[in-house]
């Protein structure tokens, strides 16, 4: 019996964004179909994973997350080096956690100096991610933009409350920005319009719809991503046709379920494997909803996700 395959007529396409600088460029985006729907469209650039590096020694991490980095955890440059040399990281995401006013609250110039060092020593595209405090991020990320002039860093999160300050500086020093909004398609579109009005060019923009992880709001992120892709690909919503990035590891590794030991919760199985799977399965769901860049932590979770991407890009029969 022959069957007629019901294909969708996509009318839009995700923009291709060139990240990094000459010699280490990576392109993301470019999809002309829903995630991995390769029987009716193309994904010229499979999703990429950026490995996290912290600007200071992280607190409160479960043992499993520290273990792979124990030897480099005091030094962001060495940490980034290990991610690239040992774990084959395609991108690095420098987390400026110690800038948080609720934490160490290091000043912007000090933070920028750390970012500069990592940027100088790292030969893959570099994401620099603020602490999430709107005002502090404006200060810190602007300094980072200046001091790393011309490196085409990926700067985020850029939010409604600080997009003018960061956006303008990013344009001046030629970086790419991450437009970040709290799980809302209209707000996502609105911020992209505002950044466009500010003259951030379309090839310097990727979007962060905000993360909810397994057990903690995953479904909201998942659906807003599917809606964004639907609007971008089938409703010609030009202001949503951008690659999507997600900062997921942070939220995964702080959940209670990942922190419980096997003795405390025998039914939840091996703690290390559980942490890895919470991270990898969160990533897997996000891939199915349209992620282009995933900011991840554990090398084994990353390996699982990379392999899964390869499998999903492959249409072989058996």
């Amino acid at each position, binding site marked *: 019996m022959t069957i007629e395959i019901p294909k969708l007529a996509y009318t839009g396409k995700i923009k291709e964004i060139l990240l990094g600088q000459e010699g280490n460029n990576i392109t993301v985006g470019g999809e002309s179909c829903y995630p991995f729907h390769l029987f009716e469209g193309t994904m010229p650039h499979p999703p990429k994973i950026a490995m996290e590096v912290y600007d200071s020694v992280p607190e409160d991490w479960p043992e499993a997350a520290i273990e792979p980095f124990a030897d480099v955890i005091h030094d962001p440059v060495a940490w980034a080096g290990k991610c690239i040399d040992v774990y084959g990281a395609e991108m690095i995401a420098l987390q400026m956690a110690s800038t948080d006013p609720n934490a160490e609250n290091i000043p912007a110039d000090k933070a920028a100096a750390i970012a500069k060092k990592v940027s100088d020593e790292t030969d893959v595209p570099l994401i620099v991610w603020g602490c999430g405090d709107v005002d502090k991020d404006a200060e810190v990320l602007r300094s980072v933009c200046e001091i790393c002039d011309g490196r085409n860093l990926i700067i985020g999160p850029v939010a409604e409350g600080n997009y003018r300050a960061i956006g303008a500086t990013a344009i001046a020093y030629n970086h790419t920005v991450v437009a970040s909004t709290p799980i809302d398609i209209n707000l996502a579109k609105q911020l992209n319009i505002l950044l466009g009005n500010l003259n951030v060019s379309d090839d310097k923009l990727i979007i962060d719809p905000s993360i909810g992880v397994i*057990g903690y709001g995953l479904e909201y992120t998942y659906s807003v991503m599917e809606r964004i892709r639907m609007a971008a690909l089938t409703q010609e919503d030009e202001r949503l046709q951008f690659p999507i990035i997600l900062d997921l590891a942070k939220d995964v590794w702080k959940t209670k379920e990942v922190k419980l030991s096997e003795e405390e919760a025998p039914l939840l199985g091996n703690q290390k494997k559980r942490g890895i799977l919470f991270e990898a399965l969160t990533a*897997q769901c996000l891939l199915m909803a349209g992620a282009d860049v995933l900011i991840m932590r554990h090398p084994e979770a990353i390996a699982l996700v990379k392999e899964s991407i390869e499998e999903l*890009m492959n249409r072989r029969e058996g």
Partner: protein
Amino acid sequence: MGLSGIEIFKKLPKTNCGKCGVPTCLAFAMKLATGQAEIEACPDISEEVKEEIGEASAPPVRTVIIGAGERAVKIGGEAFMFRHEKRFENPPVFTLFLSDKMDEETVSDRLTRFNNAVYERVGVVMRPELIAIKGDSGESSRFEALAAKVCRETDAGFVLMNEDTEALSRTVRACSGRKPLIYAATGNNLETLGNLALEFSCPLAVKGNNLEELAGFAERLVGMGLKDLVLDSGARTAGKVLEDQIIIRRSALMKRFKPFGFPTIVFPCEMTDDPMKEAMIACQMMTKYGSIIVLSGIEGHSIFPLLLASMNIFTDPQRPMTVEEKIYEIGAVDENSPVIITGNFSLTYFIVSGEIDSSRVPVYLLIKDTEGLSVLTAWAAGKFGADTIGVFIKKSGIEDRIKHRKLVIPGYLSSISGELEEELPGWKVLVGPREASHLPAYLKQLSQQ
């Protein structure tokens, strides 16, 4: 989709008797058309019309039940490609694979893990639901013995898999009351298994080597009068399974292609030897349209996140899970017990009450209606500010139950504490920790003061 409200109305008794709980037949018809009512609610419709309407208003993916009694599970019943379009109906069923080649010990160990893997989350019980029993030892006695053991040792539903049609038939006959899923009708055994499923009213899986073959087989079975089918397209690579699952779901929804209007079965257990990779594949299939997902083993560290993720994807996007607005007494409270407030989002409530529970400090937990939003989301949406909390505390009646006037608020709301004290004269507002996991230590300290 299906019949319109008016078309359904034409077939109703038109007496407006109201026995269906809706004042008029027209109103009832409209509800039926949008899936908000069950045809059974009207006692005066003839069986014939019932079938006609039922068929037309049924979801494009048929609901199939596997197993019997309390542990019977529903799969399928889906009408959408994306959860945000309305909602997904029945979460996929994670299934343990057992082979009659396994030794006793392995089987017992896996069964124990299966039976133990029961988790409660936001008041909902999650667990792997089915057991797939495969005969591949070539000895039918081993297969029959394994099926008998599973029957005895669990009340879960199961899938019986055997290429030996004779052995399969005998086993189905022996446990037909448990309504197992028979796996699988394919080229040469199609009629035998079709008749077997009809005779014992059991659901039947149908397997093709590709979508074309699958459609052909399914059509023949539908022609034989089978109603409860489960589809296996034969794909055993991640990319191909995804493609097949999408095409099957779309054919059912967009083209009303009857042979594909059934739930599916997929086999991560046959696709890798690495349990971690297996979990990844299972997760893919959970999001994209697998109904029965067969796993080689059940381990807490993989089944728990899988179940949790699946609960997320299958919650109703239009209705966050909530708990009732009221004063919850946790432990043996008295007039000196601490008073704590949070919102009525189920997740928030269950996390916070769980931590209070484990602290063993008796606490009055005040739940304010925040329309199912988390603490910060509710605050950002204007539903958990000082003004509304103030009003809520006063009318909650808590002032009559306690002697002190101290209120603990979530750490994330620290910015409202001053304003809240103004709203609540005589009260002292204490800012608790941000994360609920720090509550037990905080409460112990508080109760010592």
